[in-house]
């Protein structure tokens, strides 16, 4: 089969599976809701800086939880089946695109609940939405690759956090910094654009690395 067709078939399979096992999706939503509720009760009135930092931390944990299951749910037999009918790059790309979509939806839910409970200190909410979407793409890309690595080991969920945190630090710092544009902090001309390009370049390099490295994880 043509690689593109393989990719779209695999992506369709992921989405269908998600829609058929809705409990996982609802579980994620409940995870977001309860996290934010705990934050709301413990935090009270948050300043803009704290609000921003906590938003990205919740985003990070949501991403770990949402992406982790993408490889955990693949049983050994099914992986073998995939191995015999698809190419590794089509497989990892379908996972990546699916996780980006999933994280995008979770991001929107997170934003809605977060602003509902903890208020909205931003001056330009639309810009913040855009930045958070950009961030959720980057996060899900990195953690898809890490989920693929962690799925080969024991204690996968906690291992993913250990493997991922040091790698995700620079992206998170860039994102926290960039989202300050949405809090009417004045930036040097062109500085936000530069950060956006940097983030996109990082995303691109993660995709490239995933396509190059996944074939090695793939064969068992």
């Amino acid at each position, binding site marked *: 089969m043509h690689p593109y067709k393989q990719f779209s078939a695999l992506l369709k399979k992921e989405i269908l599976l998600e829609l058929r096992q809705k409990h996982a999706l609802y579980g994620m939503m409940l995870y977001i809701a309860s996290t934010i509720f705990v934050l709301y009760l413990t935090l009270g009135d948050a300043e803009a800086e704290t609000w921003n930092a906590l938003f990205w931390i919740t985003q990070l944990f949501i991403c770990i939880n949402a992406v982790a299951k993408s490889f955990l749910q693949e049983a050994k037999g099914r992986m073998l089946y995939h191995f015999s009918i698809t190419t590794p790059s089509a497989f990892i790309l379908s996972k990546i695109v699916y996780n980006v979509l999933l994280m995008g939806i979770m991001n929107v839910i997170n934003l809605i609940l977060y602003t509902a409970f903890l208020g909205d200190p931003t001056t330009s909410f639309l810009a913040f939405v855009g930045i958070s979407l950009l961030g959720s793409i980057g996060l899900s890309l990195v953690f898809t690759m890490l989920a693929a690595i962690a799925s080969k*080991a024991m204690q996968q969920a906690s291992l993913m956090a250990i493997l991922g945190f040091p790698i995700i630090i620079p992206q998170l710092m860039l994102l926290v910094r960039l989202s300050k544009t949405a809090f009417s902090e004045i930036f040097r001309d062109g500085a936000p654009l530069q950060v956006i390009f940097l983030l996109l370049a990082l995303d691109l390099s993660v995709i490239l690395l995933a396509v190059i490295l996944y074939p090695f994880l793939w064969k068992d």
Partner: protein
Amino acid sequence: MRIAWWKIASIILLCYAVVGGLLLPVPALSQLGETIRNLYFHVCMWFAMMILFTISIIHSIKYLNRSDLRHDIKAKSYAAVGTYMGLLGYSTGAIWASFTWADPNNPAYASFGSIMREPKLIGAAMALLIYGAYFILRNSIKDMDQRARVSAVYNVFAYTMLFPSIWIIPRLLPSLHPGQEGNPALNFNDIDARMRMVFYPAVLGWTLLGAWITTLKIRIELIQEKKILSNEK
């Protein structure tokens, strides 16, 4: 006993670095005073660490190419000694910082929070955390071949992600650390000519020492794993 020319060179260079580093003249800077001599030890540790990590990732790539377990052992040993050098870099840096950066009215523990925000320290902490995670990952996979393959993939992935970050973070945050504009010690104008006379030999000496320790570790491990390795070929 296997002694090669570079091991002798390492001994000579390190003797020179220690003796010369403590005795040769250095520029008198009011802030640093004689602590500037720590440059020959502190900065060299980071150089050695990065070079050893680079060798480790080269072996990881070689492993992915050829699936020879010897390369996996080499990658692991270089990463281990690199991490050790990184810890030494941290401790020499901590001693240095306590004389130059830390507030004398504050105990060291209280100023830790503000010192740790240094971009170079963040970069170094990231490198150490990544290799810490690398060893945890290795230990959590039982099958030897799979362990070698998965950890090689993580090594390559993490190392390539580390590089842009080391380049990005210093440009995001304000810093007290020398070499504000980017990466310290790589710029030729940063260091006084007198210091360069000791600094470069010292870097070479410490790196060679690290490599020497690693080759010993590799030899021990190759002997331990002899059975498995001889079955392979």
